[in-house]
């Protein structure tokens, strides 16, 4: 026998925490954009993003990819901690008890609300030990200098440390398709470093499906 009164703990049913109109708030008088917990958000000027890329390229050349990847890792690590904290607070469920479906749904909505594009998880290679994350409309990739290989180093780093912490395993991330190279979306493959390493050299001459096929065979 289901009792409606029992279903309504504290008379509250949590909904879509990251819904954009509820999540993004602000104290405009003080010049502050804030999230619904009162933490500061900011709009990143496109030109600044381009300037960071250009400055890095000029000062560090080839190494800028690694710098960006590491910046991404730093971002991902802190993003994971904050993301979990916000979800735990709002849904009043310890992270470990939160169903994966809802966790992923929150991540997708969070990504959209921050204007980072649209993120989707593809589990088709999960039984082979790989997770594919697809991001479309990435602002970080749109403004990165184009090259003959994918340029989403910031996101690759961020996804790497986000999912490393989520799974408790040290993962690596390689981008296989890139909007900067006219692909329909940016695909990132996550897996154990040893198994994923061969993909690093494949990205310049193989497409995503071929890379996945090779990775799964090894």
């Amino acid at each position: 026998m289901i009792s409606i009164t029992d279903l309504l703990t504290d008379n509250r049913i949590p909904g879509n925490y990251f819904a954009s109109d509820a999540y993004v708030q602000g104290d405009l008088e003080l010049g502050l954009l804030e999230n619904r917990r009162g933490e500061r958000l900011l709009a990143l000027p496109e030109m600044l993003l381009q300037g960071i890329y250009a400055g890095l390229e000029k000062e560090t050349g080839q190494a800028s990819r690694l710098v960006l990847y590491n910046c991404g890792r730093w971002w991902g690590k802190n993003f994971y901690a904050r993301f979990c904290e916000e979800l735990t607070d709002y849904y009043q469920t310890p992270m470990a008890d939160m169903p994966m479906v809802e966790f992923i749904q929150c991540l997708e909505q969070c990504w959209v609300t921050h204007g980072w594009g649209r993120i989707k998880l593809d589990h088709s290679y999960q039984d082979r030990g790989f997770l594919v994350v697809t991001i479309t409309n990435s602002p970080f990739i749109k403004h990165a200098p184009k090259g003959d290989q994918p340029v989403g180093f910031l996101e690759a780093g961020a996804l790497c440390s986000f999912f490393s912490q989520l799974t408790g395993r040290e993962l690596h991330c390689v981008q296989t398709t890139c909007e900067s190279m006219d692909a329909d979306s940016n695909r990132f493959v996550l897996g154990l470093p040893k198994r994923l390493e061969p993909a690093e050299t494949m990205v310049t001459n193989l497409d995503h499906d071929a890379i996945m096929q090779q990775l799964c065979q090894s």
Partner: protein
Amino acid sequence: MHPDIEALFDDAESRYLKIEELGILNQYVDSLPERLETYRQLRNREVEIMQPVADELEAALPNVSQDNLERSLKNAILLLRYCAMAMLLNDEAFVRNRLLNWVEKAAQAYNTRPIDSILYPLLERKLGQILTPQQMGFLSPPLTLAKNALLDPASVS
């Protein structure tokens, strides 16, 4: 707020509203007391509305696990709360932006459609008994939108 009314305030930044624009505003303001009353009914009689729905749902689906029934019922309670707010604001977009995408995905992931297809007609019938036809008229647009998103997602997108 209804997008037409919101647009009206934005447009009127540096001028007075036109007579026909005032008419739109007037219409909404005139409907507000009844909208508030509808909201009050839904708010105060939530358990009275949902408990019979839960009982009938359980009776109709004796083989479905309690967890799954509870998940759909919780979603329905949440949706009705959002629909109530959307009705008060006369703004379906409130439901669309805040919730639809959200419940739609959860419904897909947990495959709740077989339960929802029985739940929502029960809920609508119950609401029809509690609200007046005019009140039901205010609530129907957001409620139909929400119901369709769950039962027939293609029709909404």
